[in-house]
């Protein structure tokens, strides 16, 4: 069933394209059946899970890499699957209204469905690599959703930013997970968790954990990676509501919670998560109060809450797991609703700016009512579920597992964030729904279509009714999740009114009070100087990093890939020297004795020495022709050496080729300017001379070392012996060429043949801008250049086409 749910979701994704042909609200209700079915299926498992069962399912995939499609459903997974599919159902309905008439709606549903499948896979996965695969898929589908309105630069930027940050973190996560699995000896999550003791003792623990943190922090928008989340608000609101508040951003928290039993309670875990979580929580809370855009406000409040969750995951203490689970649920309920309502407002009023909105409570009464209730939940006002969760947070904060000193700091931070939470909830409500009518709104604003309010209504209702009598049931549902996080029998007990006047309750009330008081000073707070230095702005750093990288890359590439062949050649030669020279010098001359020069005949010596002379002449030649002739002497002398040293075939071939090459070279280059221009400076020459000299010395060394270091008998003896008897030829070289190694020769003539084709095409097929005379038509010679006929034949014949192929005839 687990596997089926994930696979069916993916398989059903193309169904979303139906919306392309029917971009009207009813399609949303139809398509919502898919997440609804999933919700129903998971909900059906709830009793069993509550009863303490655990479902598992696995099919092998790439066993050799440790990848196995292993899924398992426990309390934590159940909570998330219910959130994903439940809120998914509402979003699916909402979308059809929000995007009504948009031709891209089909695409949007496809992305949404893929996302849902990925998210389900992620929370169900019981194999780290499978988890990672779905993790990445959520990033990708999120990218497509954020960039849905890709005609706008901001949408592209937001999408790209989110993807780069989350994928970057994902890569770290991947390495971390592999390390973790290496340490645990298994890729199965449940087995990894079981190996907690062993893991914490492993030397891989620290690197693995840091890398996993990186993955979780980027995904869950923790400081300093939080900046991508507000930019992801470029997504159409359904996506924001679904991904960026209710589900995907919690993936990082989910993973921390999932690994909590195995990896927590070390200083690294505690301090990192506590500090990052607390900072994120505070920054989010503060900045949310400075945003004018309602989605921006909600995004920062989400960041703040994510920080809270990470803090709860890290701080330890008996209440923290329960508080974490409650917070996840509460946040999903009110934030999902608020986002959808913000979308409704945007949809109807045509703006999301607080300064341009106002007084909508009369024009959009239902929206206003739902928004107010959810905001109260967000503010933690009693009898709403947000209050219950906040109580839990404060309990956890009061009774945290941190060392003295730090515990107080964390407590203060939690309270402070609660204060700010009241403040931004108030800003949202008062700014949008109260006061005079906003200035920047559309002319005739009216209530959003009912379908658009279904989702918010359901979620808000839950926020309201859960505390009204369903708390035990909720607690029962959440208990298995808590068990998954904290295996040592931590009990979750949710309550609306505590039995006694406890410190958390006092703190909660105090925070509400202070928050209420501070609402008086809201304009001053919004206008107050930023608590963070100006440069310390994720957006700006991101942009600067991107630009800096591009500029750096450009100037680096310009320098390196500068288009100059000689510079590339220099690299190549230096590479050769660098690779060959050290081993040659170190080991190449082992056991060599200096050669005996006595057997060298004077006339061979003269011939051999004429080669360097020819080389030198080629180098020093000041005209092309001079250089060509000088170099051909080199070839001739080499051929001569071949003759003397018993290689007549070689000498003949060498000479023939040498001559033909010279002729070809002359044919092509004799017509160009004859003299060489002086193009390089003396210092360049000196440098090149040094490089060339070094390489030459190395070649001499390696040649001599190899020629004096023949350790094995060559196979050529067999050819000498068998040339006549088996190859029926006396010229051993030729027998090798046409028989023993005739296959080489075949390749060789093919090389010639291909070279001909290439040269022919290159010379005759010109780009159309150049004067073109293609193909084999024989050229008509201009009178000045070529003698067409020998004089004694008198009359000039009519030009035949030389392509007259007797071969074809």
């Amino acid at each position, binding site marked *: 069933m687990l596997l089926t749910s994930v696979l069916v979701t993916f398989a059903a994704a193309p169904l979303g394209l139906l919306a392309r042909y029917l971009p009207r609200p009813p399609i949303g209700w139809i398509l919502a059946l898919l997440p609804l079915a999933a919700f129903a299926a998971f909900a059906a498992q709830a009793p069993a899970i509550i009863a303490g069962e655990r479902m598992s399912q696995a099919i092998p995939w790439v066993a050799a890499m440790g990848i196995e499609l292993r899924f398992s459903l426990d309390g934590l997974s159940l909570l998330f699957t219910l959130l994903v599919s439940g809120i998914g159902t509402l979003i699916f309905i909402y979308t059809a209204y929000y995007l009504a008439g948009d031709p891209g709606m089909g695409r949007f549903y496809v992305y949404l469905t893929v996302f849902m499948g990925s998210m389900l896979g992620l929370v169900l996965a019981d194999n780290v690599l499978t988890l990672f695969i779905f993790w990445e898929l959520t990033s990708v589908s999120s990218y497509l959703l954020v960039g849905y309105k890709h005609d706008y630069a901001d949408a592209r930027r937001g999408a790209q930013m989110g993807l780069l940050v989350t994928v970057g973190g994902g890569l770290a996560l991947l390495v971390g997970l592999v390390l973790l699995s290496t340490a645990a000896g298994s890729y199965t999550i449940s087995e990894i968790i079981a190996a907690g003791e062993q893991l914490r003792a492993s030397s891989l623990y620290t690197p693995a954990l840091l890398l996993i943190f990186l993955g979780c922090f980027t995904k869950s928008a923790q400081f300093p990676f939080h900046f991508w989340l507000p930019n992801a608000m470029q997504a159409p609101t359904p996506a924001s509501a679904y991904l960026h508040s209710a589900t995907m951003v919690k993936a990082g928290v989910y993973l921390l919670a999932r690994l909590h039993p195995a990896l927590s309670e070390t200083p690294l875990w505690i301090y990192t998560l506590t500090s990052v979580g607390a900072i994120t929580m505070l920054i989010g809370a503060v900045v949310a109060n400075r945003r004018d855009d309602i989605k921006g406000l909600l995004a920062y409040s989400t960041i703040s809450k994510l920080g809270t969750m990470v803090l709860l995951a890290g701080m330890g203490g008996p209440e923290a797991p329960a508080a974490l689970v409650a917070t996840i649920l509460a946040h999903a309920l009110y934030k999902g609703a608020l986002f959808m309502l913000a979308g409704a407002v945007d949809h109807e009023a045509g703006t999301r700016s607080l300064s341009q909105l106002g007084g909508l409570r009369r024009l959009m009464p239902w929206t206003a009512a739902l928004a107010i209730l959810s905001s109260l939940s967000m503010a933690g006002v009693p009898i709403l579920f947000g209050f219950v969760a906040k109580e839990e947070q404060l309990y956890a904060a009061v009774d945290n597992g941190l060392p003295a000193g730090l515990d107080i700091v964390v407590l203060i931070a939690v309270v402070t964030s609660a204060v700010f939470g009241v403040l931004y909830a108030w800003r949202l409500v008062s700014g949008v729904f109260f006061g005079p009518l906003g200035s920047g709104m559309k002319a005739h604003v009216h209530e959003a279509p009912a379908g658009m309010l279904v989702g918010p209504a359901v979620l808000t209702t839950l926020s309201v009714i859960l505390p009204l009598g369903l708390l035990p049931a909720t607690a029962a549902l959440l208990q298995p999740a808590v068990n998954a996080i904290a295996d040592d029998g931590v009990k979750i007990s949710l309550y609306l009114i505590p039995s006694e006047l406890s410190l958390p309750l006092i703190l909660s009330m105090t925070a509400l009070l202070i928050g209420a008081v501070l609402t008086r000073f809201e304009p001053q707070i919004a206008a107050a100087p930023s608590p963070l230095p100006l440069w310390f702005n994720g957006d700006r750093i991101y942009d600067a990093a991107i630009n800096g990288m591009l500029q750096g890359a450009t100037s680096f590439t310009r320098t390196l890939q500068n288009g100059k062949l000689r510079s590339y050649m220099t690299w190549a030669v230096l590479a050769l020297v660098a690779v060959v020279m050290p081993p040659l010098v170190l080991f190449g001359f082992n056991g060599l004795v200096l050669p005996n020069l006595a057997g060298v005949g004077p006339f061979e010596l003269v011939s051999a020495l004429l080669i360097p002379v020819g080389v030198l002449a080629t180098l020093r030649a000041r005209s092309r022709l001079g250089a060509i002739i000088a170099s051909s002497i080199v070839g001739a002398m080499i051929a001569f050496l071949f003759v003397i040293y018993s290689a007549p075939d070689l000498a003949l071939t060498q000479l023939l080729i040498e*001559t033909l090459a010279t002729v070809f070279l*002359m044919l092509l280059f004799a017509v160009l300017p004859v003299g060489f221009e002086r193009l390089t400076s003396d210092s360049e020459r000196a440098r090149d001379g040094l490089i060339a000299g070094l390489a030459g010395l190395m070649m001499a060394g390696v040649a001599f070392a190899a020629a004096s270091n023949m350790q094995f008998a060559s196979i050529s003896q067999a050819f000498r012996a068998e040339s006549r008897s088996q190859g029926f030829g006396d010229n051993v070289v030729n027998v090798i060429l046409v028989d023993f190694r005739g296959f080489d020769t075949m390749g060789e003539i093919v090389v010639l043949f291909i070279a001909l084709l290439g040269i022919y095409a290159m010379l005759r097929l010109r780009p159309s801008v150049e004067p073109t005379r293609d193909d084999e038509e024989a050229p008509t010679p201009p009178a000045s250049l070529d003698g067409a006929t020998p004089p004694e034949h008198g009359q000039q014949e009519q030009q035949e086409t030389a392509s007259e192929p007797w071969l074809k005839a």
Partner: protein
Amino acid sequence: MSAFQSGMAILMLVMSLSLGAAVWRLLRGPSIPDRVVAFDLIIIHLVGLITMFVVTTGELVLLDTLIVISVLGFLGTVAIARLIEEGRS
């Protein structure tokens, strides 16, 4: 080494030195045709040296290279001379 071979060896050495002189002209120029004349003469030297080498060693197989070398010496000289003309600017 027999007296005959010694004699030939001396002659070959002389030829080698003479070859050096021709190469000197090749390097010295000054004009391109000067170099080509030297090239032609160098080929002649090589033919001569190989002939004498064959006479001393009796390795007749090497003799067959002479024809080709001569042909190529001619072809090369003529080609260069001809193309120098084409290329005059």
